[in-house]
């Protein structure tokens, strides 16, 4: 003990004071300041999205149309990148130094601390070489993804393509999509997006200070697994589709084939087409631009977006409605002297002098005069005012699915054009107009716009003798082969079955009996029932149109073919349809080689340098021709 004894309290006081300072500070950073807790999480947790495999798309027989191929997205967290050999790195992933700088700047701009895509879709080969060196590049890692692969490179417009989500997609999805995700942009990929995409999973991985994975956070309690997308069985017949596309090479136009007993679309050709694999991979942007600026518009989905006046195939509808309304009977005869006189001095011309025809023969030879009379009977001699007769007629036509969307399971379908009575009332300034004022409707021209899909659907309706199923592209969904109920519902068109027989008789004669307009397309053992159409085109050669179904009894296929600038319906459209029918029904082509070769080699693409051919002024319906709003592809009719 000495005189400095009280100093022990000073010293002990200092010890306690310092300890309190430490405790206060500890209390602050451990209990009060929560930011350290979050930083710790950032340090350790990596949310790794697990991308589900997108659903496969099969054809109707189970053959693969679209499959997945693994690719590897190279990700980067700029802040974790340490200096490395840039040149070697660039060489490994196949980019140059400027690209590297650009991409790296972009990544920094996005975020220094979170990952973003540095290079998209490395192929398996590139990845294999790169993977071994990956450890030399801290801050970079690879995420496994799958992209679409189309083994046969067919049905591009049907299948559509996927692409990175847009800002709008992200907003609309309320949190489902994130930047860099893929989404169906067109075609089946788009319309069935929600089924195909599956469900993304998330792994919460823990990493150490060197970003090495250290297992799942909380033993994976917060992980979710990815659920693969549903498998779609499409209605398409792969072989038929392929053959159809081959036949349409170097031609502009469409083929739509439907199974009448189900509404399933067997073939969906839009020509010119493109290789759907172009819309995948690192060159996608470039390819997209090229396709988008191609004057032949390969991205245009002609079967549902191109509208044509139907031409003579429309006579089938008028023949059916005429009977249903009681305006004509199957044996009603009209005399053709080379044209139909509907007032004034100029007739609606016929291609031949057909003399007297009954209904089947009128279809077989495609007599305009006959249908002028049928139309007049429906509109003017119906026991009501013409305008009301027209309304009834229009209603009847509309039931066939014309002038409205068929609601096919593809985006961007157009509804076509079916005029209303008010159009003419407005045009003629009162409603006292008669059939002569729009007589061209009798032969499928004038203010009509019909898509190839609608044409094929009419063929299916005739094949079914009075009803159709909604045409659709997807037969069944997923393992359970779910079918949407709307696709099993019959849509009646309001024409009794008995009225179809004489029309079908006529359509059979078109193909199978001289002087039918498409006898060149007859097949020895299959009774095809069809109708040609030749759609006049003010911009060039006429469009060749044909629709048909076969066989006559218990039909298996209904088809519509449009070949732009193909001339007469019997020249290109009918043989193509006939070949496809044969292929579908017999699984073979027994026609002579020259028959097939002529079509395969035929080139009907417009030659831009050649001056357009002068078109002979045929104006059987001049009054309406002048003023009408022409549909996208103008036409006139021949037979």
């Amino acid at each position: 003990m000495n005189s400095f004894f009280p100093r022990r309290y000073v010293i002990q006081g200092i010890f306690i004071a310092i300890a309190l300072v430490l405790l206060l500070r500890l209390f602050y950073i451990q209990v009060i300041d929560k930011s350290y807790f979050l930083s710790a999480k950032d340090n350790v947790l990596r949310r790794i999205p697990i991308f589900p495999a997108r659903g496969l798309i099969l054809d109707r027989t189970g053959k693969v149309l679209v499959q997945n191929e693994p690719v590897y997205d190279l990700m980067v967290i700029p802040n974790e990148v340490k200096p490395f050999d840039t040149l070697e790195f660039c060489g490994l992933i196949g980019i140059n130094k400027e690209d590297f700088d650009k991409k790296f700047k972009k990544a920094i701009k996005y975020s220094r601390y979170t990952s973003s895509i540095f290079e998209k879709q490395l192929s398996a080969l590139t990845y294999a070489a790169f993977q071994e060196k990956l450890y030399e590049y801290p801050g970079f890692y690879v995420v496994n993804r799958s992209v679409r692969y189309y083994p046969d490179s067919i049905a591009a417009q049907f299948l559509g393509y996927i692409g990175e989500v847009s800002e709008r997609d992200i907003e609309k999805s309320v949190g489902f999509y994130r930047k860099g995700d893929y989404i169906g942009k067109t075609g089946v990929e788009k319309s069935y997006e929600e089924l195909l995409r599956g469900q993304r999973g998330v792994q919460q991985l823990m990493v150490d200070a060197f970003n090495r994975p250290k297992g799942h956070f909380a033993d994976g309690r917060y992980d979710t697994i990815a659920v693969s997308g549903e498998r779609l069985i499409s209605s398409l017949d792969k072989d038929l589709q392929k053959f159809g596309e081959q036949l349409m090479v170097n031609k502009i136009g469409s083929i739509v084939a439907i199974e009448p007993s189900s509404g399933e679309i067997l073939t969906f050709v839009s020509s010119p087409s493109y290789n759907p694999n172009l819309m995948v991979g690192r060159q996608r942007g470039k390819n997209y631009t090229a396709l988008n600026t191609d004057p032949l518009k390969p991205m245009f989905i002609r079967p549902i977006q191109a509208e044509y006046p139907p031409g003579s195939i429309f006579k089938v509808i008028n023949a059916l409605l005429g009977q249903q309304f009681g305006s004509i009977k199957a044996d009603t005869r009209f005399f053709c002297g080379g044209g139909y006189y509907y007032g004034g001095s100029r007739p609606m011309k016929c291609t031949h002098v057909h003399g007297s025809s009954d209904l089947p023969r009128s279809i077989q030879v495609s007599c305009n005069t006959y249908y002028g009379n049928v139309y007049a009977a429906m509109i003017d001699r119906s026991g009501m005012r013409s305008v009301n007769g027209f309304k009834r007629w229009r209603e009847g036509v509309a039931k066939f699915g014309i002038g409205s969307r068929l609601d096919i399971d593809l985006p961007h379908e157009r509804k076509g054009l079916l005029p209303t009575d008010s159009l003419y009332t407005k045009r003629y300034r009162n409603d006292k107009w008669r059939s002569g004022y729009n007589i061209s409707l009798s032969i499928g021209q004038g203010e009509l716009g019909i898509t190839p899909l609608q044409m094929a659907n009419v063929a299916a309706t005739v094949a079914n003798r009075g009803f159709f199923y909604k045409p659709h592209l997807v037969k069944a969904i997923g393992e359970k082969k779910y079918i949407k109920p709307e696709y099993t519902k019959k849509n009646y068109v309001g024409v009794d079955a008995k009225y179809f027989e004489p029309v079908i008789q006529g359509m059979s004669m078109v193909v199978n009996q001289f002087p039918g307009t498409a006898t060149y397309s007859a097949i020895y053992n299959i009774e095809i029932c069809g109708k040609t159409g030749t759609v006049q085109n003010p911009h060039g050669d006429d469009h060749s149109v044909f629709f048909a179904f076969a066989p006559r009894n218990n039909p298996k296929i209904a088809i519509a073919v449009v070949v732009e600038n193909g001339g007469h319906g019997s020249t290109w459209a009918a043989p193509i349809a006939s070949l496809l029918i044969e292929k579908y029904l017999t699984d073979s082509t027994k026609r002579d080689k020259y028959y097939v070769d002529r079509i395969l080699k035929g080139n009907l693409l417009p030659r831009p340098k050649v001056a357009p051919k002068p078109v002979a002024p045929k104006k059987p319906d001049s009054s309406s021709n002048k003023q009408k709003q022409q549909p996208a592809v103008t036409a006139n009719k021949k037979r």
Partner: protein
Amino acid sequence: MINQRSLFFNIDWIIIFIYITLCVIGWFNIHAAVYDPQNPSIVDLDTNYGKQLLFIVTALILGAVILLLDNKFFNAFSPIFYGVTLILLVVVLFVGRNVGGNQAWIPIGSFRLQPSEFAKFSSCLLLAKYLSSTNLKLQDFQTLIVCTLILVIPMALIMLQPDTGSALTFTSLVFVLYREGLSGYTLVIGALFIALFVLTLLFNTWAVTGILVAIAAVLIASNKKNRSFITTIAIGTAISVVFIFCVDFAYDSILQSHQRNRIDVILGKINDPRGEGYNLNQSKIAIGSGGLWGKGYLQGTQTKYDFVPEQSTDFIFCTVGEEWGFAGSFVVVTLYVTLLIRIINLAERQRSSFTRIYGYGVASILFFHFFVNIGMTIGLVPVIGIPLPFISYGGSSLISFTILLFIFLKLDSNRMGVI
């Protein structure tokens, strides 16, 4: 036999209890810090926690041996300990293994001897022996010089390694000198100089000087009549100004850049969580993320996954903070404070001034380590690489702290005797 029993009854069991508790806490946290979920064996002599177990056992045996030694031994042999330590400190400069930039270790087989650790208790012992000799007064200039030399020689040798952290430990012995009669102003002036030091680094040298001179002027003006007061203020100001410029010079020219950076990070002059501040930042994240109750034993992610450097040695407190939260931190801090207070209390009950002075030395050194180590993990003190007594991984430090403490326990157990 009587001696034996009295030894048993005379030992301070509170200190023993705290000591063992801290060792156990240390061992569990070292285990957690290096724990690998893929390889969760608990005793494996190749791992840090396996080795630490050996160190603890060795330390306990050593402690027992110390308790059995004769009481006079330490007093008598303290100059020899001191001399041997100095020799080792010189030797290490030549044969030392360079680890982390420091010539700190002498390899002896698989064991690595760290003389700077042993310098702590040998200096304490010598200081105690010298100051306890009769007829000495710390107010005497000569006494002060001798005391300073006893401390500065090992300090300087350790500085040469260079191991600044360990060297600074010796400054804590100013508490001993204070207790033994060094003017109270020493502490105040010391604190003032630390404040000046910080201010100089934080702000412009000239600004600090200006403010200082202004304050001096005001003080002088307010008390014009007191001559001696004016003189004191004037001399004080002059010394301060010189000190400011010395600090400025030392900071720019003597300190190595990483030391400069560590100071800057603490002072908040640079904010670089990925560069120099990385260790500190990660350390704070680890401790801060522990919350009130901690993440649980072996559940810490920051320390286990190497975000925190040196997580089983200097930054072991991060594991405590992360896995045991504020509750655990509180327990550890409380244990230390209890230990320190207890040592002082025991020191003051001694009849022998040698024991008392030595006790104060033990408390000072433990206090310095405790404060600086925990302080640096939470950003109160610059990052100085010194261990947390009894908890940090490492044989040299555990054994030297054990020797330090158990010599005191031995001396205390014999408090009734007179040397």
